[in-house]
């Protein structure tokens, strides 16, 4: 449980007496208040899904995209402050194209994750900058196969086979752990991700939400793209059915 760091939380360049940097912890809170974002690594690729909380009924569906392609072979789902997320995505795209120009091959996912993490960390080192208020789930498919990384506002980045950030992350992680990911194809993974997002969505607290999903797998020819509409509808239907079955108990 975090405490109020009165006096030691005014600047990202100040440590508290117990060795914490409160500004970074507060930045993480911005991520925790956003809609859930999930990523899983199946045996033939990556699937990512976002619970996009709709602020207004007048918004057109499909706008305010939360999942972005960084390069042909990789994509990023952002949780937290959307504007901060745009900045990070722009930087990641720039790193990816620069790597391709200099080295003549697509950027390895590990290298991309390292560069994004370094960039996020950079903004925690100077008093005239504030930390990014977003968490990133980065999925890509390079010559070493599919890989999934998560980058936190502190700048740390780890490789995962399943990751979740945002409001429902605890519940989502529990659900992901139940899945047998190494035996699952991405097609099946899309259905599972939809089910989890529908499950962790809190009807009482939040209003409507829109489900946004992307994948990069064998079926998509190792390109990062939106999940095809028919599969997305199938996933949504399966998720709704699963919810009803649960409620019926």
């Amino acid at each position, binding site marked *: 449980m975090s405490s109020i760091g009165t006096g030691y939380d005014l600047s990202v360049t100040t440590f508290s007496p117990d060795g914490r940097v409160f500004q970074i912890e507060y930045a993480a809170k911005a991520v925790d208040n956003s809609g859930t974002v999930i990523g899983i690594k199946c045996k033939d690729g990556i699937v990512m899904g976002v619970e996009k909380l709709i602020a207004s009924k007048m918004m057109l569906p499909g706008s305010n995209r939360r999942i972005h392609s960084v390069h042909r072979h990789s994509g990023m789902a952002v949780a937290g402050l959307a504007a901060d997320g745009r900045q990070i995505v722009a930087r990641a795209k720039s790193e990816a194209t620069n790597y391709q120009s200099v*080295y*003549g*091959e697509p950027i*390895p996912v590990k*290298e991309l994750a390292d560069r994004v993490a370094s960039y996020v960390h950079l903004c925690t080192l100077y008093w005239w900058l504030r930390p990014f208020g977003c968490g990133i789930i980065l999925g890509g498919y390079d*010559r070493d196969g599919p890989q999934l990384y998560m980058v936190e506002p502190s700048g740390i980045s780890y490789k995962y086979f399943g990751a979740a950030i945002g409001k429902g992350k605890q519940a989502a992680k529990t659900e992901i752990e139940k899945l047998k990911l190494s035996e699952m194809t991405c097609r099946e993974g899309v259905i599972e991700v939809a089910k989890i997002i529908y499950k962790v969505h809190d009807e009482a607290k939040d209003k409507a939400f829109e489900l946004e999903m992307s994948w990069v797998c064998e079926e998509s020819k190792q390109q990062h793209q939106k999940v095809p509409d028919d599969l997305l509808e199938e996933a949504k239907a399966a998720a709704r059915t699963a919810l009803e079955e649960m409620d019926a108990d």
Partner: protein
Amino acid sequence: MDLNMNVDAPHSMGTTIIGVTYDGGVVLGADSRTSTGMYVANRASDKITQLTDNVYVCRSGSAADSQIVSDYVRYFLHQHTIQLGQPATVKVAANLIRLLSYNNKNMLQTGLIVGGWDKYEGGKIYGVPLGGTLVEQPFTIGGSGSSYLYGFFDQAWKEGMTKDEAEQLVVKAVSLAIARDGASGGVVRTVIINSEGVTRNFYPGDKLPLWHEELEPQNSLLDILNAPSPEPMNI
């Protein structure tokens, strides 16, 4: 003989360089003559330079230019390897060579052949000729001596050779070019790169076959003078 020979002229490697892929790796070959106009500045030079543990480059053209380009790329590849945490691929090495050659094309005069082995693509050869193009090829030749080898390779090259077949082909080709090209000569050096590592071989001039109308090499004047009938080469 030209007594007004300028020994301070820029060193150029007349050269014959070759890169050939085989089933499992690559063989790089080169002659060893570095000339300064008519004078042979170095008759035993090593034109096959290491870039990383698994990637080598054959240099031709200006000696200085090709050395500088190799040095820069070796430096960049070293940093890249540290960052990546694993050996660089042949493609990356070739691309770095190409970027330097292309972006400085007005100042450089060097043709390079990049060859190596990596775990993703296996053995690969990339040609980076004068203007800075990058072409991946199953085999390629370069340098002034290569003019005499185009027909030879058209006939003698085949896909899927063994390591020994490939090396014999390269040695034969370099020695043919040395026979006809005045700017190529000396010894034949080869470098074989595959999954097991790198092997360097050396074929001195007197071990190479003699071709049409070539004379036996004379290694020492003393041998000629002490022979039963001293008849050194007459002009």
